[in-house]
């Protein structure tokens, strides 16, 4: 048609067409010609080049999922903001020894049935109200409420008596001794008792922490400003913190590489190779794992009720390959759930099952099977699918034909809790990074009384209960931990594959960042070097 009408006489001068095109270019260029660039906006203000800590600047953290206020008291995917807004009673050091935070000292009674806490004085909430023992009492009682979905509810529920001695001393009485009380103190944020319902609705989050939440834009991010009256003198160094939600992995990575954000714990393993090649970024790994990928087995589905078959599966998976190909090499291939920092960790345990398809086939044969067909449920997100595909391929090599069942996270979650998992499932669990007894008491997949594998054994129940109530140090504690580990390995109802600590990607000019055991971000001492 063009040829039909395009006579030279009607053609326009070049100038006109250029002008028309120029209008478009101008519009395009409008943003680029502006005073700031969105790609380098987050540059810290120019300061003197120095090595020491320096006041000022705003830190932008890239997160892949938004804050969920209703999960404020449960361990959820995104708990980074907890230690910015709030404080906890104590915090663990690298060797799992508690250090003072809002509690300055503590003393266990001889019989282990009560603990006396001395609380920090001169601490105020963001709204100016002073922090007292009543706030701690409320915090514990709050976690006893099943609505809060706190995983450490069992431990909180063991606290049955509160005795206040003035505003800054408190005795907690226990129904029975527990050895993971400091896990609770590490986990439990101390919120304002008057506004807790507003907090879980996301309306008002009032804490004692180093930063005040100034704005939460659902789906977009959070903004914090410095708490000028923080109880630690001269801290924090930063003027403000911003969380920016970037769900897409590639966009998240690119925001780090271009300096739009300076910190993230959400870079998928497969992208870490790119980070390693970026000169301005540093990767650091928290050996205290926040999560572990595992292969769950429903022990009521034949032939998985035979533990020999389950053990065959444990030998068949190439953990090192999953670590390398799916997780970018960051993590630890392990047959036990324990990270290296855990008192229950042992190298013999970790390597109890390694990749040995020959042995797996033999075990399967000895159990009377040469070929099995099993379904495997997994979450339909890219990383989880890749893990499931790797497991499927490895199991195929020993004659186990696996049909994958990709499932959205909510349904998978429902099946897990309702104990409606098919023969196999692949997911991840937490809670192995603190006191080992916490795992068996608080993490549902390992629960002795009721778990998704439908595994029950009187011996496991007994050893778990005893481990929970025995003091955490000493020969007896070690023996009990070993017994838990041995049971987990021998029964293989949860086959651990790879332990994954939090992997931190940060701009090299950012210093002083730490995470607690429950992935609460601590920026008290963080600063952006000039």
């Amino acid at each position, binding site marked *: 048609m*063009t040829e*039909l*009408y*395009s006579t030279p*006489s*009607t*053609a*326009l*001068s070049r100038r*006109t*067409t250029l002008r*028309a*095109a120029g209008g*478009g270019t101008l*519009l395009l260029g409008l*943003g680029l010609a*502006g*005073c*700031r660039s*969105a*790609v380098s906006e987050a540059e810290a203000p120019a300061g003197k080049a120095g090595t020491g800590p320096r006041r000022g600047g705003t830190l932008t953290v890239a997160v892949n999922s*938004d804050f*969920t206020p*209703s*999960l404020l008291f*449960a*361990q959820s995917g995104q708990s980074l903001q907890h230690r910015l807004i709030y404080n906890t009673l104590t915090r663990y050091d690298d060797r799992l020894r508690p250090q003072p935070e809002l509690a300055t000292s503590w003393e266990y009674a001889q019989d282990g049935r009560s603990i006396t806490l001395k609380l920090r004085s001169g601490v105020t909430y963001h709204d100016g109200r002073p922090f007292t023992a009543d706030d701690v009492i409320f915090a514990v009682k709050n976690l006893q409420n*099943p*609505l809060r979905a706190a*995983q450490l*509810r069992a431990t909180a529920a063991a606290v049955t008596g509160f005795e206040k001695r003035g505003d800054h001393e408190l005795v907690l009485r226990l129904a029975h001794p527990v050895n993971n009380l400091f896990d609770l103190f590490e986990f439990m944020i101390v919120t304002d008792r008057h506004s807790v319902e507003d907090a879980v*609705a*996301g*309306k008002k989050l009032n804490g004692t922490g180093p930063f005040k939440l100034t704005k*939460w*834009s*659902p*789906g*977009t991010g959070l903004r914090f400003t410095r708490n000028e009256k923080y109880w630690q003198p001269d801290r924090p160094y930063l003027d403000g913190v911003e969380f920016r*939600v*970037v769900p*897409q992995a*590639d*966009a998240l990575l*690119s925001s780090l*590489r*271009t300096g739009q954000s300076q910190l993230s714990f959400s870079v998928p393993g497969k992208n870490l190779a790119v980070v390693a090649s970026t000169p301005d970024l540093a990767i650091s790994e928290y050996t205290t794992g926040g999560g572990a990928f595992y292969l769950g087995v429903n022990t009521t589905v034949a032939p998985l009720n035979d533990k020999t078959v389950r053990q065959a599966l444990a030998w068949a998976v190439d953990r090192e390959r999953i670590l390398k190909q799916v997780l970018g090499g960051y993590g630890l291939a392990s047959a036990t759930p324990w990270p290296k920092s855990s008192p229950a960790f042992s190298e013999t345990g970790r390597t109890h099952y390694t990749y040995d398809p020959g042995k797996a086939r033999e075990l399967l044969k000895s159990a009377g099977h040469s070929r099995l067909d099993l379904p495997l449920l997994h979450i339909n997100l890219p990383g989880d699918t890749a893990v499931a595909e790797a497991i499927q391929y490895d199991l195929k090599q020993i004659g186990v034909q696996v049909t994958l069942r990709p499932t*959205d996270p*909510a*349904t*998978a*979650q*429902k099946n*897990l*809790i309702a104990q409606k998992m098919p023969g196999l499932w692949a997911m*991840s669990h*937490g809670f192995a990074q603190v006191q080992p007894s916490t795992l068996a008491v608080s*993490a*549902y997949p390992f*629960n002795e009384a009721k778990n998704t594998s439908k595994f029950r054994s009187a011996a496991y129940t007994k050893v778990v209960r005893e481990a929970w109530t025995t003091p955490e140090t000493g020969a007896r504690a070690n023996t009990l931990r070993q017994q838990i580990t041995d049971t987990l390995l021998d029964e293989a109802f949860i086959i651990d594959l790879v332990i994954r600590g939090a992997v931190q990607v940060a701009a090299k000019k950012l210093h002083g960042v730490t995470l607690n055991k429950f992935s609460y971000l601590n920026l008290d001492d963080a600063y952006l070097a000039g």
Partner: protein
Amino acid sequence: MRGYLLRRLPSALLVLLVASFVAFALLRLVPGDPAAVLAGPDASPETEAAIRTRLGLDAPLHTQYLQWIGDLLTGDLGPSYAIGGQTADLIADGLGATVELTLGALLFVVVLGAAFGILGATSRNRWVRGTVRALTTAALAVPPFVTGVLLVLLFAVLLGALPPGGRVPLLTAPDLGVQYLLLPALCLALPSAAVLGRYLKDGIERALAEDYVRTATAAGVAPRRLLWRHALPNALPPVVTLLGMQTGHLLGGAVLVEAIFAWPGLGQLAEQALVRRDYPVVQDLLLLLVTVFVLVQLLTDLVHARLDPRIRWE
């Protein structure tokens, strides 16, 4: 016309009613509920049950449905179950972002469409015309998830000139906001710009072929003047109608583009709410979308019925 409207109204309301049933039932047919999501991966069944009771999910289904409709009619959408905040706020924020993206895209559609149309119809250079034709064909055919990936790869990863995703609201920081808006708006605009460009090109060509234009040309009127004074004014009316139709397409297409560029609009909200089984948010959002759609349908049918007397729904 009013009679026609009155006749159409009952069936439109019926569609809304059925849509509310479907929206309500759909989520409850899908396994997994907000209580399970809220309880988290290591929670016990007791915890989950307690949350379910608090959310009122224990109540019989018809009670829940009536409760929802009642809340809607009183104008109080209530709190979201899983995302946090008020449902109305979430939807308002998402709507703002989606409208911003759509308007940005509309601007691109007009600019690019005009460039495509005018260049394609009037350029003397074969290569320019050929390029424009190839560009429009490609822009129309290639799905947004492909162009989106290419745009991110080019402008964000390789050139590092624009952010690959996210949003800064245009009203709070216009200079930054524009940069976040550029890529998603362009990605969303391309197919519609191509459609517009084609119609415009055809229109100009047709107008330029009219007898009076030929006469004017012979009389020595400048070609530029011809274009602006005669060809364009004649080609514009159908293009404006088309633009209206394309705005609807843009709103629909925004959902996918939002996912590619992490743009926190209604599409992102719907996906997030769906994944977390946030019943009230998904239900309200679905009903809102259906309402908008029904209204647009009604308007379109009205316009058609007025324009084309042969189409009658007796």
